[in-house]
């Protein structure tokens, strides 16, 4: 009993350091309530060495607890599927099918953990990987989350991820890394 009480009071002391924004917690609960979702996306990559941006589009699919699929249909059909720590890449037109460990792909990992953590409503996982800046404008209205990777290794590849949405829906993800920006717009 006394030990339990001590533990509780220690937790209570530790809690303010993490500043759990109640709006963020509510948002995460909203995401956690959706075990699966599907949406269209359009994406535009701006790379400093290139004169023009590179567009692409396709479908995003999410299945709790940890399966995320990005199926690009244009200009090149390819599938990127993450499940647990494995990364599967398929490119049907060339018959390519490769499996990687997510650990070995820092660029991919930085992005995957952000999207997966958000869609799963797993705040603890997000906090483990990123410093979170959350600006809600309205409890059910639009919101913005700025994620900065905590790991030096991930931050070398991706400096910042901006996730924004409305209610329990992600509307856009901007990834900034290596001097370039990738903007993804999502329509449910």
């Amino acid at each position, binding site marked *: 009993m006394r030990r339990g009480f001590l533990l509780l009071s220690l937790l209570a002391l530790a809690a303010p350091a993490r500043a759990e924004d109640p709006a963020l917690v509510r948002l995460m609960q909203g995401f956690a309530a959706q075990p699966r979702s599907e949406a269209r996306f359009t994406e535009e990559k701006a*790379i400093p060495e*290139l004169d023009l941006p590179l567009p692409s589009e396709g479908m995003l699919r999410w299945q709790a607890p940890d399966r995320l699929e990005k199926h*690009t249909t244009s200009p090149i059909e390819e599938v990127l599927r993450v499940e647990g*720590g494995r990364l599967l890449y398929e490119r049907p037109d060339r018959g390519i099918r490769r499996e990687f*460990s997510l650990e070995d792909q820092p660029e991919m990992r930085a*992005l995957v953990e952000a999207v997966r953590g958000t869609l799963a409503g797993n705040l603890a996982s997000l906090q483990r990987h990123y410093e979170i800046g959350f600006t809600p404008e309205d409890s059910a209205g639009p919101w913005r989350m700025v994620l900065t990777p905590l790991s030096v290794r991930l931050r070398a590849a991706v400096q910042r991820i901006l996730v924004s949405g409305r209610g329990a829906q992600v509307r856009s993800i901007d990834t900034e890394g290596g001097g370039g920006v990738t903007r993804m717009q999502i329509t449910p």
Partner: protein
Amino acid sequence: MRRLAAALLLLAVLGGVLGTQVGIRADLAEFLPPGRSPASAFLFRELQSGAATTLLLAGIEGAEPAELARVSRETAAGLRASGRFDFVGDGTTTLGEAEQALLFRYRYLLSPETRPGAFTAAALRPKLEALLEGLRTAASPLLARVGFADPTGAFLGLARAFVAESRLETRDGAWFATEGPPRALLIARARSGAGLDAEAQGEAVATFRAAFAAAKPGPARLLLSGPGVFASEAAAAIRADIRLITLASAGLLAAFLLWRYRSLLLLGLVAVPLAAGTIAGFAMTALVSNGAVQGIALGFGMTMLGVTVDYPLLLASLRRPEEALRDAARRIWPTLRLAAASAALGLAAMLGSGFPGLVQLGVFAGTGLLAAAATTRWVLPWLLPGARIAARPLPRPIRAALGALRGRRGLAGGVMLGAAVLLLALGGPAWQRDLAALSPVPRAAQALDGELRRQLGAPDVRVLFALGPGTEAEVLAASERLAEAAAPLLGHALQGIDLPSRYLPAEATQRARQAALPAPETAQAALAEAMAGLPFRPSAFAPFLAAIAESHGLPPLTATALAAGAPTLAARLSPLLSRRGEAVQGVALAQGVADPAALADLARRLDDPKILFIDVKAETEGLLDAYGRATLLWALAGGVLVLGLLGLGLGSPWRALRVAGPIGGALLVTLAVLTLLGEALTLFHLASLLLLAGLAIDYSLFLAGDATDDTMGAILNCATSTLLTFGLLAFCGTPVLHGIGLTVSIGVASAFLLACALAPKIPAHA
């Protein structure tokens, strides 16, 4: 009484002194022959001291995967911190930032893509188009990072080649087996230039266990394997096994003798020739082998000398009532002498085998037998001049059964004929050609090793090429010649080949690549032409041009530089490229070999003095066959000699043949039963058969002389003692001990029964 105690004390002291003065060698490799061909010589040198001896394989299981991963990560961290390991592989092993930087810097010297003509506008154009396409795909973040400094993809090609074969699954920073229950996997290479001695291996194993314990494993278990574990822990386990069995069989033997003779004195009497024989055998072996007695030869030799308890037992049992021990010894000496001399002569076959371990075993057992016989003749009567030990009469049913067996020559002949027919029908005895069966390592430990190797993708060496010896540049150049020649065979004759040049190209090759790089102005012009019409900004590939310019001036990468800058890669290279004194020796390991003959053919066609093909399995099988044949021939020669000796000793060739009958019969029956049980014969089975022949001579000689109930009782006591000593060995997990135990047990039983059946009938009990 007092003399006996003093003699036992003296023997104990002598044994202790010898044991501390003579070093005992423990590893199997030294037990093996030095190798007759260059290939086998290389092979055994690798086995004894090669880099393979530094490898430790580990599995962690028995908990939730997440917990296993944590324990694995912390164990690996502990191992790295210990400083005892050159390389620790686990799920956290990727090319470090510094290693990637080194690879990146040297990419045009290391990449096989660097060829004349690879940097012209025509060659660059498709590369740039591919880069542009790649940037549209999911790989774009990685390509955006490295693609503009390396549009030809040299670096990514290298990185892929280096980590490609890790077929392991990584979860939470730990490697996991892809089959079976969750098991985290680790691999470590102990720090050392070449091979390790047993002591250093033991320390590495202890460090590993300590690191595991420090990771607070909870319910998780550590499965550890590798030559170091075999050398230290498995050997200890076997020693404990032997000790237990020795104690158990000694206890059984003592109880049996006490029951039969009701005399504690007899136990002392039995111990003296046994101890004297062991000490004499040990001393002679140490003398013959320059002080390096093999632990295996010693262990098995001592086990074999267990048969010398027969001599004092015969002496005590065959003494007539009211006869002094001295007179009894004098009376039975001609027969005893003949038996011991014939048995020792039979063991001489081992001397001719050329197998160092067996030669030692032969010397040990032969000397021991003769010394024990001599002790029985001259020392025992002096130790116990007034001894009045007599065996109890045999229980009536046993006596009746033996009496009924006596003189049943037809039965004996029938059994022998049956055994011969059975042996023929089974296609003769099966000969063990697998070196592993000779190993003192228990089967379970061997199986675990095989399983961990398979799961970790560690090479289980079946076919290899020896490269060199020579300078590092020569060995790497030989490796490249082999790589080129083997390339057409990949995918069918073999699945892959791990070559030192895969991690480090020869110096000449690196220089040739430097020469193939264009001058900066040429490169710039070619690039500008290739970029025409593509959406790259003009300055996009400035880092690429700078890298070409820098590559011209780089000093070629050496093994030493690789070790300093890229420890993970150096650890992959080091088992394939080792320094032996001044020279460098390389090894190429072939994987997934489907057609060894094609590889042998390849080496023959190459006819390269620096490339030697070794089919490990065929080579060891050939060696074992050769030594098996030699031992068999010597055994036959020994048999003829023994027959001659018996003929001389008994004064008639007819009587010699009659004595030899039960011996030959026992050998036949034993071979037939072993074959029926599916036992493949090893050299140790052969050695046991020779020993068995020596025992059978005792039985046969004494029973042929005068097969009274008393003699039969005495021989039965001897046979039972031997059965008690060797029977337990048949239950041992160690293949060799099991083989010896089984062979001797079957043989002794059949030799005794056959000798009884072939003994002359006596009209009535006198």
